[in-house]
C-alpha cells in the first residue's frame, strides 16, 4: 500500500507542483487521476471545503491547497529543500509564491473571455510579467531559488508552460521574449530541468482541451 497518494487532474498547473516536489525529493507515490467534470467520492471526502485538486494523502491524512501541500512535503522530507531556512529569505519566497498563486486565475481569464474582458486580462498579464521581470528576477539568478529551483519557481510554472499554449488557443502573443529577457531566460532554464521537462502536460493535448473549453464558452455566450 502506498503511503503517499496524490489526487490530481492532468490539465491542472497546481498538480504538477506537487509531482515535481515529490520527484525532486525522491518520494514514491501513487497518482490518482480525477475527472473534474464528474468529481469522485474520494475527492469530495478528502477536500469537502474546496472540492479541488491537488489533494495529498499521507498515511490516509489529507492535505489540500498546493502551497500548503508543498510546505508539508518540505517539512516531512527535508532533502532538496523547497524554501530558504533564513526567516527573511523565506518571507520573501512566500511573498512571491502568494503573488504567483494570486495570478494563476489569469490563465482561465485569458481563454475563457473575449472582447473587452479578454483585453483586460491581457493587460493584467503584461503587468504581472513586468513585475516578474523588474522585481522578482533581479540579481542575475538562474532560478528564483538561486542555483536550484525551489517552490517559487514551481509557483511561476504556469508562465513557463501554460501561457504559451493558451496564447495559441486565443491567437494572441502576450509574452514577447525580447521584452522580458530575464523571464525568458528563466523559462528556458526551468523547462530544461529533467524533472520538469518530463512532467508537463502534453502541449497538443493541453491545446485541444483548452480550445474545446474556449469553444464551449463562446458557444454558450452566443446562446
Amino acid at each position, binding site marked *: 500500500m502506498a503511503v503517499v497518494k496524490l489526487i490530481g487532474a492532468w490539465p491542472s498547473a497546481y498538480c504538477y507542483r506537487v509531482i515535481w516536489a515529490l520527484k525532486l525529493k525522491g518520494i514514491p507515490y501513487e497518482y490518482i487521476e480525477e475527472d473534474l467534470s464528474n468529481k469522485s467520492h474520494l475527492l469530495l471526502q478528502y477536500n469537502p*471545503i474546496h472540492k479541488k485538486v491537488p489533494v495529498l494523502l*499521507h498515511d490516509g*491524512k489529507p*492535505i*489540500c*491547497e498546493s*502551497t*500548503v*501541500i508543498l*510546505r*508539508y512535503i518540505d*517539512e*516531512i522530507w527535508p532533502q532538496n529543500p523547497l524554501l530558504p531556512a533564513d*526567516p*527573511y529569505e*523565506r*518571507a*520573501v519566497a*512566500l*511573498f512571491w509564491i*502568494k*503573488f504567483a498563486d494570486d495570478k494563476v486565475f489569469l490563465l482561465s481569464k485569458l481563454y475563457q473571455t473575449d472582447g473587452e474582458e479578454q483585453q483586460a486580462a491581457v493587460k493584467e498579464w503584461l503587468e504581472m510579467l513586468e*513585475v516578474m521581470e523588474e*522585481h522578482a528576477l533581479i540579481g542575475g539568478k538562474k532560478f528564483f531559488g538561486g542555483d536550484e529551483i525551489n517552490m517559487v519557481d514551481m509557483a511561476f510554472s504556469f508562465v513557463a508552460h501554460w501561457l504559451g499554449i493558451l496564447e495559441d488557443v486565443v491567437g494572441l502573443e502576450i509574452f514577447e521574449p525580447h521584452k522580458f529577457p530575464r523571464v525568458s531566460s528563466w523559462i528556458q532554464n526551468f523547462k530544461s530541468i529533467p524533472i520538469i521537462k518530463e512532467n508537463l502536460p502534453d502541449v497538443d493535448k493541453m491545446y485541444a482541451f483548452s480550445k474545446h473549453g474556449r469553444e464551449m464558452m463562446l458557444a454558450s455566450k452566443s446562446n
Partner: protein
Amino acid sequence: MEDEVVLLDFWPSSFAMRVKIALGEKGIKYKCKQEDLFNKSPLLLEMNPIHKKIPVLIHNGKPISESLIILQYIDQVWNHKSPLLPSCPYQRSQALFWADYIDKKIYGIGRRVWMGKEDQEEAKEELMQCLKTLERELGDKLYFGGQNIGVVDVALVPFTTWFYSYETCGNFSIEAGCPKLVAWAKRCKENYRSVSEALPHPLQIYEYVMELKKRLGLV
C-alpha cells in the same frame, strides 16, 4: 544590538490587527506608523512597491509584506514564547489551510456585505456559510489553536470587530447563525490582552465604514 521593528498600519484594517496581536503576544516593542490609504507615504511605496498595501513589518530596515507571511516571520524569529503555529507538521498544514481559507473568503465577502450593492443578499448568505464552516472547524475547542490562540485565531478574530458593520449594513444577525463563533471572539478578547488592545471598538469600525461609504458614493 536592539531590534528595530516598525509596523506600517491602518487602524481599521483586520490584516494589520493580526500583526499587532502577534507582536503583542510575543512581547515585541515596535513603532506603529499610521498610513493614509488615500495618500500613501513614500515609505510604504518603497517598502511594498508591488502591492502598495499595509500591513508592512519593517524589521531592522527589511520589509515583510502580506499579513499571514508576517505572522509566520514573527513566529519564526521570536520563537521564545507564544507559538502561533503548531509544532506537528500535519497540524501545521491544517492551520495554514484554514488561515488561507479565511484569507480567500472573509474580507472579500464581508466587503460585498457592507457595500450594500445588488449582490448584498448573495454575499450575506456566503458570509454565513463561511462563518458556519469555521464554527464547525472550531468545534468544542476553546480556540482554533486548541488551549491557546494560534495563527487561525489571529487570522480570524480581527474580522469579528467588523461584524457589527456587516450586520447593520446588511440587516441581519451573525450571532443568531453562529453563536459559538461569537462566543469564541468574546473569549479571545477577554483572555488575551494582545487581542483586546489590537481590536478597535466595533462602533469605531462602523463609523469608519459609513464615512467610507459616503466617500465612495454609496450613501
